[in-house]
């Protein structure tokens, strides 16, 4: 086993790859080693190199020889140049691989290259090794070779005191090392980006996988790519140099930071809060390098409460590198109320509709249904201005404030015919509706409407006369109403005010007992109807 390692190390040394290889040599016939990068600068003639060194002492069984072939624009050098080793010998090698600049591609390109090492080695190992293609030349018992000389197999480390069979084998194969040779490059774009008086120093470098960029500017040297350089106000052209360096190989480029001219200045049509003009200004330039722009005034504010009206027109100047442009903006105080108007709503219609619902329940239109009605509270609409964005617009907005409470009731007396022993029976329907609402709503830029549901509750009660035939036919009856609901909604803005009323009534049953003159007593339960939907009706 140790002999195998020896052979492997020997090969790696010859290939300058001693630190990269851990696989057992006995298993290798053709092997590729990890890829390596080399760099050249066509501008400076600099190259990077790949170096290595390794030593080896063989035992009395080991010997070998290696031959190296090169493919691509690289060269290799091994010292000593003899890549063979004999029995019981110690040797140390040093090697280097270098690109051949003349054969390398233009800056910004790369080319592949490789070394191929062919080895031919002999060594000893315990019998029964892996089927790796090695040829067995001979065998021996390791116990018989005790000669008092210290070497790897003295006392037969593998088999112990009584020894065992070892074999002498011969093995041949190749090991390949791949390279990629980069011809490095560095380019500064013709137009450099600047924003708000700060330039971004950026160079396009090749290959960019490693290395650094160093900038030379009138304001000092800086290291890094995409770094920011604060420019002075009103600056002219500024020369800069970028040098890309990777593994000691450099490529330099010159560039110019050229300030562009301010060509456009615009502000939103309005603002409802204090704003830094810088944050809301829309600026255009005739190129990508934007110098620092100053604004006068630098801040715009809405008018204070008490200002005449709610808006103020502010003119603003923008200056950059001797170019001055102007724009304007309207500032708005949205809390300034321009007008306040009470909203007139005819809530009495709710009472009218309740009466109609009661009449439907009683199936007696024109019956003397007695209504009651009260309405309290009120709603006010206030007008103000609002700054809307996207698209920018100064809009009139309205706000509804206030509360309302409406109570309507109706009482209807009507006949029920469904009792066998009397022509008809008086029933008393009492219905009421309560509508309440508190509003504090404002129109928005996107929704110029204010519509709201007011809370509405409705109730129906049905009483049935119990005195029949002068009290001689007894009727203990009542009406049962199974659920009732109502909804009232209004749209206040835009005018005119429109409303809608809907109500639902559940099943109404007549339940109780009726006893005839001749004491025939009935348990009564019958349905007047399963339900009814009122409306929707406009209010």
């Amino acid at each position, binding site marked *: 086993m140790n002999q195998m390692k020896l052979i492997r190390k020997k090969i790696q040394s010859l290939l300058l790859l001693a630190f990269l290889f851990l696989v057992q040599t006995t298993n290798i016939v053709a092997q590729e080693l990890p890829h390596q990068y080399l760099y050249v600068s066509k501008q400076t003639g600099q190259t990077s190199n790949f170096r290595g060194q390794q030593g080896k002492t063989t035992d009395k069984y080991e010997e070998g020889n290696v031959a190296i072939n090169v493919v691509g624009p690289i060269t290799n050098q091994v010292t000593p140049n003899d890549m063979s080793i004999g029995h019981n010998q110690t040797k140390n090698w040093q090697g280097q691989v270098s690109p051949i600049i003349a054969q390398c591609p233009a800056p910004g390109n790369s080319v592949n290259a490789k070394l191929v090492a062919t080895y031919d080695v002999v060594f000893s190992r315990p019998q029964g090794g892996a089927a790796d293609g090695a040829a067995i030349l001979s065998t021996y018992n390791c116990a018989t070779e005790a000669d008092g000389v210290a070497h790897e197999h003295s006392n037969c480390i593998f088999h112990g005191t009584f020894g065992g069979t070892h074999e002498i084998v011969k093995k041949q194969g190749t090991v390949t090392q791949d390279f990629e040779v980069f011809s490095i490059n560095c380019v500064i774009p013709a137009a450099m980006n600047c924003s708000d008086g700060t330039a971004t120093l950026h160079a396009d470098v090749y290959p960019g996988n490693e290395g650094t960029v160093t900038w030379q500017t009138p304001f000092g040297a800086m290291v890094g790519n995409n770094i920011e350089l604060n420019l002075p106000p009103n600056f002219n052209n500024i020369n800069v140099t970028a040098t890309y360096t990777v593994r000691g190989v450099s490529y330099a480029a010159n560039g110019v930071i050229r300030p562009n001219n301010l060509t456009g200045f615009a502000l939103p049509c309005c603002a409802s809060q204090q704003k830094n003009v810088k944050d809301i200004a829309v600026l255009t330039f005739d190129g990508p390098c934007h110098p620092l722009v100053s604004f006068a005034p630098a801040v715009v504010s809405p008018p204070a409460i008490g200002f005449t009206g709610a808006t103020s027109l502010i003119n603003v100047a923008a200056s950059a590198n001797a170019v001055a442009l102007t724009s304007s903006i309207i500032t708005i105080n949205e809390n300034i109320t321009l007008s306040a108007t009470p909203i007139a709503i005819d809530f009495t*219609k709710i009472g*009218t*509709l309740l*009466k*109609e619902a009661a*009449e*439907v*329940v009683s*199936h*007696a*239109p*024109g*019956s003397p249904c007695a209504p009651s009605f009260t309405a309290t509270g009120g709603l006010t609409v206030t007008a103000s201005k609002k700054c809307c964005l996207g698209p920018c617009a100064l809009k009139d907005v309205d706000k509804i404030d206030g509360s309302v409470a409406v109570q309507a009731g109706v009482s209807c007396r009507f*006949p*029920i*015919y*469904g*009792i*066998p*022993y*009397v*022509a008809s029976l008086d029933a008393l329907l009492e219905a009421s509706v309560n509508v309440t609402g508190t509003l504090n709503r404002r129109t928005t830029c996107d929704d110029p409407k204010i519509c709201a549901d007011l809370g509405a509750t409705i109730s129906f009660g049905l009483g049935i006369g119990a005195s029949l*035939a*002068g*009290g*001689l036919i007894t009727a203990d009856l009542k009406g049962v109403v199974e659920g009732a609901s109502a909804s009232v909604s209004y749209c206040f803005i835009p005018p005119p005010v429109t409303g809608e009323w809907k109500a639902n*009534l559940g099943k*109404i049953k*007549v339940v109780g007992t*009726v006893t*005839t*003159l*001749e*004491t*025939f*007593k*009935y*348990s*009564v*339960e*019958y*349905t*007047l*109807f*399963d*339900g*009814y*939907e009122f*409306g*929707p*009706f*406009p*209010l």
Partner: protein
Amino acid sequence: MLYNRIVSFLTKYIIAVLLPLAAVAQAKVPPYEFKPVEIKFSAGFTGLMNDPTHKNGSDLVYKYNGQLFDKTDGELPSKADGFDGTTKRSTPWETLGELINAYREKNFDKILSLYNLTTQDQLIALLAGDKKEKFLNHVSKITKAKILAGFEYKEGILVIYESKELGISSCYMLKKKKKYVLASFNDDGPEAWNLSLYFKFKPEPIAVPLIQTPIDSFGSTETKRIDFKLNKANNFITVCGDKLGQAVLYNIKDNSEYDLNPEPGVVGIDFNKTKSAMPKEYTLYIAETNYPLTMVSEPILKAAKGFTFKVYKK
């Protein structure tokens, strides 16, 4: 002279012989002839209790051993008919005949005697104080009473009768020692109630009234009068939508206080009285019945006629 003698003889003969014979003939109570009978009517009118056991489609069908009377029979004799108020009480009709006669005569003891003992105690308690007098004043209004039907019902006989003065009534009888006696009865089922309602209204087939004043359209803030010509005076007109189970819009009896047209056989209804109709096209259904309707049912929709009008915004 001879002529006068002949006239005198005939007058005496008629008074002495024929009139008593006629009175005796009319004093007979209707014969008691129970046999299997069937009563079938639409289950659609107001007041009917839910009776799934006897429901067949949209009809209620009741089958009993009993007796039905038509318009020409079932009348109980009165004193004017020569009925002296006493019978063997061997049929329900005889017992009922005695009861009606006792009503007319305000004979409370006789009335009590027609009930079983338990019910007698109930009646005495029920009609304590001035109620007894009120009761007798009320029931003595009966001039003529007519049996409508009788059925074997539970353990006794259910009898339904009517009078012009008091309308429909029902009573219950038990047979005790070959005599029928009246008894109180607590009925927790729908049958007797529904049968009583049937005999109250005697429902006729649903008819379609004529729209006397047709309308095509009217404004949402206008009230529109429509007059409906009935096929038969005093009937009900029903106006409804098409949702089953929902309340009908109008159910108005001809000549009632809610009929806006005083002409007999014509019912007037104001549409959109609140002047708040939603502008759209409406289709409503009309039907004419001799009984009240409060709920939309399949028989109504099947028989009713639709009419359409448009409400435009105004």
